């Protein structure tokens, strides 16, 4: 059994630039982040013996491009939270002795679309037969499908869902690397351009270029590295359905309810011990589902929890402190950036640092509620 804190993050970095990077193709975004993470850890490609990344990029492409000879690879691809699953699988692999030093990479030319791969559903797939004919056009038309049911069930208002974006912009204002930093109001959100009712453009994530990379190894080796080690206390993962129309409950994600509590229980922590929380916010409803499904709020209480200021700067549960997918960056698979912010907070190097934070929970979603992965980090080894 993998011990709490047995594995640590010893290298972490994003691409040198974020936002519009017209000078790099998708594979170079992976490599740029990987080189930065190796520099962060003081490692060379020859020191890495395990590689994970998510499709359309395959581990063999990354390994060959970077000059790595891996003895363990993982190409798990379940959408934007794939990196949480890679962290979980990598920790287990290091524990099992399959590899010693694992590199996880992400790069996506989401905005510039250089060597990016479009993936419309095949007409013979279940999505192609039973969703595509009815006019969905990418995540903005699919991810928010359950929102009106959630609002009716819990009495949540348009103002509540606008407040999520307003609070995250407050965090982004403290972060020089955030794409959108100017303060916004609930009225600004509710007067912004309608994309797919009930969501307007300020409730939808950004579309950017960028990437990130992580390096994991045994915590016993962590003192050999130049940065403060960030220990993995617990992990969880699950999937539900690739078709948002077939989610069992439109007010709650089964994948969240499995991955989140699995990670928190494995970590042996109480929810009140959590100092810092990341919940992948591709759209404004996701922090509400995450707060409730991970057990930080009771069903229907997350909107009030955010409205009352608990997740704001100075609140008792700082949430999405980089500004999130709504204001920081979103390449298409934001999970890597949520993990990077958790690592920065645990290292004490975040632009909007939570003073004295010791435990960070990082929760990801993939593919319109298809999948979920959760990691609990700490800067103290149990």
């Amino acid at each position, binding site marked *: 059994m993998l011990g709490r804190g047995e594995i640590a993050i010893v290298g972490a970095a994003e691409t040198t630039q974020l936002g519009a990077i017209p000078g790099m193709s998708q594979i170079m975004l992976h490599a740029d982040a990987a080189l930065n993470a190796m520099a962060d850890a003081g490692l060379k490609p020859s020191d890495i013996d395990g590689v994970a990344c998510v499709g359309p990029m395959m581990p063999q492409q990354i390994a060959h491009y970077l000059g790595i000879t891996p003895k363990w690879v993982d190409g798990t691809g379940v959408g934007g939270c794939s990196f949480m699953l890679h962290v979980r699988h990598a920790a287990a692999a290091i524990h099992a002795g399959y590899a010693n030093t694992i590199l996880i990479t992400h790069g996506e030319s989401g905005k510039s679309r250089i060597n990016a791969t479009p993936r419309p559903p095949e007409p013979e797939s279940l999505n192609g037969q039973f969703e595509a*004919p009815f*006019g969905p056009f990418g995540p903005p038309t699919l991810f928010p499908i359950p929102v009106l049911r959630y609002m009716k069930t819990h009495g949540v208002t348009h103002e509540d869902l606008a407040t999520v974006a307003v609070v995250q912009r407050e965090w982004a204002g403290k972060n020089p690397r955030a794409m959108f930093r100017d303060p916004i109001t609930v009225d600004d959100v509710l007067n912004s351009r309608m994309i*797919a*009712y009930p969501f307007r453009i300020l409730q939808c994530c950004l579309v950017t270029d960028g990437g990130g990379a992580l390096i994991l190894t045994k915590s016993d080796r962590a003192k050999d590295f130049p940065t403060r080690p960030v220990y993995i206390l617990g992990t969880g993962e699950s999937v539900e359905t690739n078709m948002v129309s077939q989610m069992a409950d439109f007010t709650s994600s089964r994948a969240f309810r499995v991955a989140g509590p699995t990670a928190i229980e494995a970590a042996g922590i109480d929810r009140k011990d959590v100092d810092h929380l990341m919940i992948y916010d591709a759209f404004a409803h996701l922090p509400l589902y995450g707060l409730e499904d991970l057990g930080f709020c009771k069903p229907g209480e997350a909107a009030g929890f955010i409205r009352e200021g608990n997740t704001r700067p100075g609140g008792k549960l700082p949430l999405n402190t980089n500004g999130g997918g709504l204001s920081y960056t979103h390449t298409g698979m934001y999970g890597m950036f949520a993990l990077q912010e958790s690592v920065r907070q645990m290292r004490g190097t975040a632009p909007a640092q939570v003073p004295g934070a010791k435990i960070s929970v990082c929760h990801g979603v993939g593919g319109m509620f298809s999948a979920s992965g959760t990691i609990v980090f700490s800067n103290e080894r149990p």
Partner: protein
Amino acid sequence: MLAPGRAKPKPTPETKHFWDGCKQGKLLLQRCGDTGKAYFPPRPFSPYTGTRNVSVFEASGRATLHSYVIHHRPVPGFTPPYAIAVVELEEGPRMMTNIVECEQTPEALQLDMRLEIAFTPMDEEITLPLFRPAKGGR
């Protein structure tokens, strides 16, 4: 007939009966032989118990509006704003669809409103199961 441009489904051996049914004006669901519960999308075994003992039956075509978005950007085959809806069939399963013969506004599209099936041909091969407000209103 629907405007051209929509993504066209391509039936597989496991779903052909459903699309054949739509062409004949029948909404065909399947029922688990162990639990008696209906399920969708089509597959030749039960997602509840794994049994291959399943049967095809004709659903009532009655449903309620479970949730939706109203998309405001242009998509081939659609004139914005248009709603992408999920309906809950009387027999239990939910499916994605469009709501026709109804204004595409939050005021007209009330959650839990009663709907009925409106089979609408895409071309000679495919008929889509769309829904309209039920006669007699909510």
